């Protein structure tokens, strides 16, 4: 029994970081008022660039390259949405489709259609003390990114609610005109946040290709970017909420896998497909039952034009 629980936690610790990073990115962007459904594409760019980078440079540097690649797509999104006031969802979907196609194309052109050659994976840290304690030892044996994913939501929480920049971000997402009249550059804040979201989504992608696996695989991130957006909504646009939602999704996924191997009898009663659908159905249910929907920033999705009131 303990083993089963431990396996569950271990899997969740391995699977969650990518989701956590990407959903934090989504929170950042949307808090500043820019809808970001392009997370999926930014993650893909990050995963690809990190893996390709790690073929040449040390893997941690590859991760940085992945973040930069995500940031580049973030910058495209920001430019279209902020400078040109494009429809934000459309721009995001365009970024997804471009990243999907370009990723596949480059992968085929440079390597094989299914994936890059393996790279040196990020080092896994085994925590000396934890390692001995049952259950808790599931937290040992992950890459640094897992521990970063545990710390970052808190840092983001502080950043959004306890720093001057965070205040400006929230103001830009709630009432950009008010921020602008106080001398805050709404465009500047939004650029920073959307590019930052790209950076984080890129980190999420890089996590997939350098920590979760040891290569870029043609499916990556296989819908995880959309899950990240869902986690953000589920978590009501807060870093801690997004973290909790990511953890929920990861545990759900781990549970499904764990059930399949240790309790095959369950699958006779509840088909695998139902277990697969469960986290999504639950998410919909919770979103549908939420009473207020005041959680979304008031100016979310509205391009800001200083000359309209």
């Amino acid at each position, binding site marked *: 029994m303990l083993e089963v629980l431990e396996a569950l936690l271990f899997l969740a610790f391995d699977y969650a970081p990518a989701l956590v990073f990407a959903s934090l990115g989504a929170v950042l962007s949307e808090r500043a008022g820019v809808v970001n459904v392009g997370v999926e594409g930014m993650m893909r760019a990050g995963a690809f660039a990190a893996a390709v980078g790690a073929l040449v440079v040390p893997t941690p540097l590859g991760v940085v390259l992945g973040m930069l690649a995500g940031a580049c797509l973030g910058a495209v999104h920001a430019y279209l949405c902020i400078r040109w006031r494009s429809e934000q969802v459309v721009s995001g979907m365009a970024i997804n489709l471009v990243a999907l196609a370009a990723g596949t194309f480059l992968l085929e052109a440079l390597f094989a259609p299914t994936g890059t050659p393996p790279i040196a994976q990020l080092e896994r840290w085994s925590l000396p003390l934890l390692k001995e304690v049952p259950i808790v030892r599931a937290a040992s044996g992950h890459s640094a990114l897992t521990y970063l994913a545990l710390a970052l939501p808190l840092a983001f929480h*502080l950043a959004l609610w306890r720093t001057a920049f965070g*205040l400006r971000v929230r103001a830009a997402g709630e009432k950009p005109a008010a921020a602008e009249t106080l001398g805050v550059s709404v465009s500047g804040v939004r650029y920073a946040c959307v590019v930052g979201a790209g950076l984080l989504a890129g980190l999420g992608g890089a996590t997939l290709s350098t920590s979760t696996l040891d290569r870029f695989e043609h499916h990556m991130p296989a819908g995880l970017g959309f899950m990240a957006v869902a986690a953000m909504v589920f978590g009501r646009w807060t870093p801690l909420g997004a973290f909790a939602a990511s953890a929920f999704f990861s545990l759900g996924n781990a549970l499904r896998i764990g059930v399949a191997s240790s309790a095959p009898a369950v699958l006779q009663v509840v088909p695998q497909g139902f277990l697969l659908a469960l986290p999504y159905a639950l998410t919909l249910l919770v979103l549908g039952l939420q009473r207020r929907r005041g959680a979304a920033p008031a100016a979310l999705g509205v391009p800001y034009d200083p000359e309209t009131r």
Partner: protein
Amino acid sequence: MDGVSLEIAPGDRLALVGENGAGKSSLMNVLYGLYQPDRGTISADGRPVRLRSPKDAIALGIGMVHQHFMLVPSLTVAENVVLGREPTRRGLLDLDRACAEVEQTCRRFGFGLEVRTRIESLTVGSQQKVEIVKALHRGAKTLILDEPTAVLTPQESDELFKVARELSSAGHAVVLISHKLKEVLSFATRVAVMRRGKKVAEVPAEKTTPEELAALTVGSELSRETNGARGPKKPGAPVLELERATCRTADGRKALLEVTLSVREGEVVGIAGVDGNGQQELAELVTGLRPLEGGKLRLCAEEVRRLDPSLARRMGVAHVPEDRLLWAVVGPMSVEENISLGRQHLPPFSHGGLVDSRGRRQRACSLIRDFDIRPPDPQAALSRLSGGNQQKVVVSRELDCAPRLLVVVQPTRGLDVASVALVHRRLAKERERGCGVLLVSLDLDEVLALSDRIYVLYGGRVTGELERASFDERRIGRLMLGAEEATFA
């Protein structure tokens, strides 16, 4: 806005007056760096400057209290005030210091504000104070107040002016925009009058009177011909009756409080009031856009419990709303499509579920001719028409329905003189036809000129009802400002 020049010196107390839409706010927004001027220059301390954003203006010591709230509802008072120049400690926002600083500013200027409460839980009066504190907190040398007293109580206004006077004697310049001429004259040293984007006069305050200012503001364009042309009043059965009707605004505040009024056939009923006193909600209530929360609503003597726009239309209610781009037209659609809107399911606009494009075209062309809509192209996208012509499309469409009750809000806003006269004539014609007209306008002269009866709204309540015979501009003005509670006859 066109060729306006203005000079402000330290210690000045300048007032800016003019009709709704005269361009007062626009001018100040240019000064504050929010709008970019097409031509002309701004100079500070004798040097020409370029204000790319409010940041530049703030750096020059300009502070502005906007006509519409510029507050982030989900943040606290202190956060709103310090936004943009936040005190930090070791990289973190120092909220305690922020609160202390803001509290100090409040105390210095005599505003009692609880700085840790969220804006959304404050009354509008307190929100207005936060706006002023925001500007003062930045040590503005030049303070622009755009209709700051519109939502303040008289005592609060007095306090505000006391502070403003102190500031000006300490060398600050204050620019006040207001529609309340009395406070303008008591506060300002100079008064500039704007009309249709131009500055038409600038006079020292002590050398002018409210009457003179009013005349300058309105000009003499508003033709009173409709006065002469109107027939005697012969109202019939009531088409609209409200009995102790209550409703809320979109954000949940009470907008109308136990309003009782009626409109009869062949009668124009005007609603007078300062913007934001419930006129908007009244119009929406009657046209089914806003649910009734308490009281009764009767259309043509029939009590209606759940009015929706479609039922309202079927019962003969037509509506010329204030915000036409939001409520009345579909910008990307063509003029003819917009003309069919609301009656798209009826001949001549459609037959048996299919759009009758010939019938629609013919009807559109005839309305375009009647109302002189330009360009006279029924297929032009509505958004490409000028604002005035868009308004004409809406008015023509609504009058074309042969309504029993016509609800018109600001029907002539943005129209030129000829079109204003046209619309007024058509409203009078509707009245002759036996239609009841509910006219909401911020332009008191228009209300006075067209109405057979006037209700005055203040704070969501009817504060007065006057028959045409007893129209008294001054008394209405007092009622509009809540300075007098009418005794119902």
